[in-house]
């Protein structure tokens, strides 16, 4: 990069109108061109993993829901998968189908939300209002099924808390029909609109090589043409039987370029994919129990006796989310709980995406990975009350010290539950 005297810095954030969440960018710009970006995260860190070490697993489940209000099904599903592997809990087949239905409903609401936000970042507020108007339909259904518009409290260790009642099935079908009918209009509004195309084509490009080397996940990676989807690569629940395929712009007949336009293509097509999955699940779902522990005290007593470690993974709307949990017999609280949210993997893809772009495109490029700071901010350094900067070596030493501290009093735990 040729540094000249004309390069100056623009700090943006942590409070700024482009994204609703706190994060700070420092752009190095030359005229209107961005030459580099530095990202400072950590403003939304609430110490959730630490708090869980003082709460029992059921309380931890509800805490996991508050990691992110948009992924409030993804995080609970992932932690239940991790705990079920650690404790060896079976999930009834009907519950597995229900979990798929709920997480696909979440994907629809999240992708429509993103589409609206993206339109807003382009300055196309009409489209924001249109998308958010149609998004209310899936929120209505989620409210019908769970009792809440956001934060649904649906998954529980061993199953789900609510069934889809027979009289609710027509409502689910109506929603699927509604969005199928709308999809073409949405594709028209986003993908065949000349002004949207002008603002998003060849803007914020992430090449397949960069996406691969930076370990991008979810729609960010798929828009660059990588066929990467946890539901396809490492099936869990009933996703294997449903035969989910990762969606790339090729499914829309386009050669992937990895720009913002491609990210919109992938997300909108995934709405259609989710509709198909919901419909299939609705009809193929077997009758039966929805949880293997209908009584919460029995579940708590079982979890208290459980010992082991487990990993849960799930394709959240933004990409792969992983929860690691370690349980010890006789202790109600998790000994270790580690969350890796998709934005953590996607954050570094901002660096190549911003390179040589225009200042006016900052909001849409920032929004194009669908960042979620509250999911990502898992670490914050507080030393004598003041935050400082930690370099890689120091961070490595600190994390090793923590692992040492956490495992010191533990006997080696045999891995069981499979899948690891």
């Amino acid at each position, binding site marked *: 990069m040729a540094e000249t005297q004309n390069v100056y810095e623009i700090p943006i954030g*942590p*409070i700024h*109108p482009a994204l*609703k*969440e*706190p994060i700070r960018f420092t752009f190095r710009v030359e005229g209107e061109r961005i030459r580099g970006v530095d990202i400072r995260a*950590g*403003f*939304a*860190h*609430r*110490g*959730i993993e*630490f*708090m869980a070490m*003082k709460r029992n697993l059921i309380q931890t489940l*509800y*805490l996991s829901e*508050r*990691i*992110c*209000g*948009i992924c*409030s099904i993804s995080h609970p599903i992932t932690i239940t998968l991790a705990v079920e592997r650690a404790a060896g809990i079976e999930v009834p087949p009907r519950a597995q189908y229900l979990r798929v239905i709920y997480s696909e409903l979440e994907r629809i609401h999240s992708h429509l*939300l993103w589409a*609206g936000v993206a339109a807003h970042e382009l300055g196309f507020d009409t489209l*924001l*209002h249109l998308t*958010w*108007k149609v998004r*209310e339909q899936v*929120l209505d259904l989620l409210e019908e099924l769970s009792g809440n*518009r*956001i*934060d649904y409290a649906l998954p529980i260790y061993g199953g789900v808390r609510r069934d889809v009642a027979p009289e609710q099935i027509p409502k689910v079908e109506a929603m699927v029909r509604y969005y199928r009918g709308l999809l073409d209009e949405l594709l028209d509004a986003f993908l065949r609109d000349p002004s949207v195309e002008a603002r998003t084509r060849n803007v914020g490009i992430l090449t397949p090589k960069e996406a691969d080397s930076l370990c991008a996940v979810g729609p960010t990676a798929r828009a660059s043409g990588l066929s990467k989807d946890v539901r396809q690569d490492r099936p869990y629940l009933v996703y294997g039987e449903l035969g989910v395929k990762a969606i790339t712009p090729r499914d829309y007949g386009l050669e992937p370029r990895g720009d913002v336009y491609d990210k919109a293509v992938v997300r909108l097509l995934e709405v259609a994919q989710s509709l198909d999955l919901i419909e299939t699940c609705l009809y193929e779902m077997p009758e039966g129990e929805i949880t293997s522990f209908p009584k919460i005290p029995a579940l708590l007593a079982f979890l208290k006796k459980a010992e082991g470690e487990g990993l849960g993974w799930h394709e959240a709307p933004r990409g792969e989310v992983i929860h690691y949990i370690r349980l010890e017999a006789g202790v109600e609280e998790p000994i270790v709980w580690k969350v890796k949210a998709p934005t953590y993997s996607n954050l570094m893809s901002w660096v190549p995406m911003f390179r040589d772009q225009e200042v006016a495109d900052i909001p849409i490029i920032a929004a194009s990975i669908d960042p*979620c700071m*509250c999911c990502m*901010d898992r670490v*914050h350094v*507080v030393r004598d009350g003041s*935050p400082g900067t930690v370099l890689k070596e120091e961070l490595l030493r600190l994390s090793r010290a923590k692992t040492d501290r956490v495992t010191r009093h533990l006997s080696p735990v045999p891995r069981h539950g499979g899948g690891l």
Partner: protein
Amino acid sequence: MGLSSFKRALWVFHVATGSCNGCDIEIVAALTPRYDVERFGIKLVGTPRHADVLLVTGPVTRPMAERLKRVYDQTPEPKAVVVVGGCGSTSGVFYDSYNVVGPVDKIVPVAAYVPGCPPRPEAIIHGVVTAVAKLEQLAGEKR
């Protein structure tokens, strides 16, 4: 304190202080066609200097406390702070975190609280209206 500006267009600035996004998306939902607060002149603006009301979400994490105070100072008088969500009102589930210094009323004065995790858009609208009514009442007493 002149409150004539409050009677018509109420401009709102949204500060997320480490919230989980739940309240934040409900605030945006309140602006969009189903709830459409713009018909009452309530509008989300991009800078605190244009705002009458601050909508604060989140439990206030350690690095955000100072920024929240600064945003509050940047907002011109008359102003009202509305806390949206349980964690901003009482710290909620984050009560024993080492990195949470809230709730919001420890940092800035608050006119109205909207409880809920997250509150519905109707509740958020009600909270904003309550805060404004409270400010008008205060101004009436001063006169």
